[in-house]
């Protein structure tokens, strides 16, 4: 039981996808200018990443591994993720136009988020089982969402700051991300305590 807790804790804090594993940075930099958009992206990613983790596990475990087709992992994972993204869009639009208007513009962007492919691949290399895969996917996406929201909060505040000209915009955002990553290093070891 507690090992599952550590899987989630590890994915959210200790090995945060963005700050420690360095995945999903393009949306992290691109969609963090405003808090609301960051939230939307976060929700959408959480949904797709969790579902993608589980599905990828199933495909790998029942289709690819038994037939020695592991070299098709990359292809089949990404294709499945793309399908999930599109399907999600379809389902959401049908069932909840409100949610669709919130998540709509973010969904297509998710396919090119490294984290969404990286996490299923990590699941394979860390030999997680189905539940662990799901939890790891969920934890990673929560970690991503958290990073995104906190970053957006700081970036909003930075808007008024008198940053030296060459650093205005993305440069100072990078430095900020670096300092956040530095702070997250403090969590090192928290998932290993027995």
């Amino acid at each position, binding site marked *: 039981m507690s090992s599952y807790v550590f899987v989630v804790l590890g994915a959210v804090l200790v090995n945060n996808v963005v700050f420690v594993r360095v995945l999903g940075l393009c949306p992290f930099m691109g969609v963090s200018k405003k808090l609301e958009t960051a939230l939307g992206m976060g929700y959408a990613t959480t949904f797709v990443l969790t579902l993608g983790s589980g599905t990828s596990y199933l495909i790998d475990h029942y289709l690819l591994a038994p037939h020695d087709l592991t*070299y*098709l992992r990359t*292809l089949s994972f990404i294709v499945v993720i793309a399908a999930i993204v599109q399907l999600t869009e379809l389902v959401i639009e049908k069932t909840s136009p409100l949610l669709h208007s919130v998540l709509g513009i973010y969904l297509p962007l998710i396919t090119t988020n490294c984290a969404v492919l990286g996490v299923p691949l990590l699941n394979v290399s860390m030999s997680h089982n189905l539940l662990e895969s799901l939890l790891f996917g969920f934890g990673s996406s929560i970690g991503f969402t958290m990073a995104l929201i906190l970053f957006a909060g700081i970036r909003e505040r930075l808007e008024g700051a008198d940053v030296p000209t060459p650093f205005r915009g993305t440069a100072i955002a990078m430095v900020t991300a670096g300092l956040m990553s530095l702070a997250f290093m403090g969590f*090192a*070891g928290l998932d*290993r305590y027995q």
Partner: protein
Amino acid sequence: MSAEHTAGATSLRSAGVMLAFALAFTMMMATTYRFTRPHIEAAREAEKMKLIDAVLPPGRYDNQLLDDVVELGPTPALGLRQGGRVYRARRGGADAALIVEATAPDGYGGRIELLVAVGADDRLAGVRATAHAETPGLGDYIDPRKDRNKKAPWIEQFRGRAAKPATVLALRKDGGELDYRVGATISARAVAGAVARALGWTLSHDTRLYAAPAGSRYQP
């Protein structure tokens, strides 16, 4: 209206295109895979052999090490929670060395995975840390690739040491003979302890280990 109809038709068409592309590219991949597979397997073995070479010079044995293995179940003395392997080196049919997987549970950053080679002369032939999470730049000198001292990496100290007297495999700070880096005693102490335990365990099991059938599971 005809939306359903068009949707169906478009679905069919796009499914067809997808199918064609998928087949074509899968074929390409499958071919590449077939072509590269032998190389990949060779590369994998070479990688493993590289590690083994580091703990046991290739000149000391002449058998197919990687095939001459004994599986271990969970072995607390080696720090193995899930089990591991012992590779057996022989030269001209005679026992040459045992290469044992072991784990130091008490590293600064958690468990340290080790490969310990014990020669038939009951001395350590070599030790390597294969996986660890020691602090980069501080505790990671246990891995010779990260060790700043390239000429005499810290972990090379183990080579040729025997199990007795007991102080041999302890740090100077604890009254032993092994060096360590100030400020990172824990990592060194963890490795030394684990190596000493592994050596002791191997020495008390070596005859049976050499004798066990290849590929079998060892029952202590």
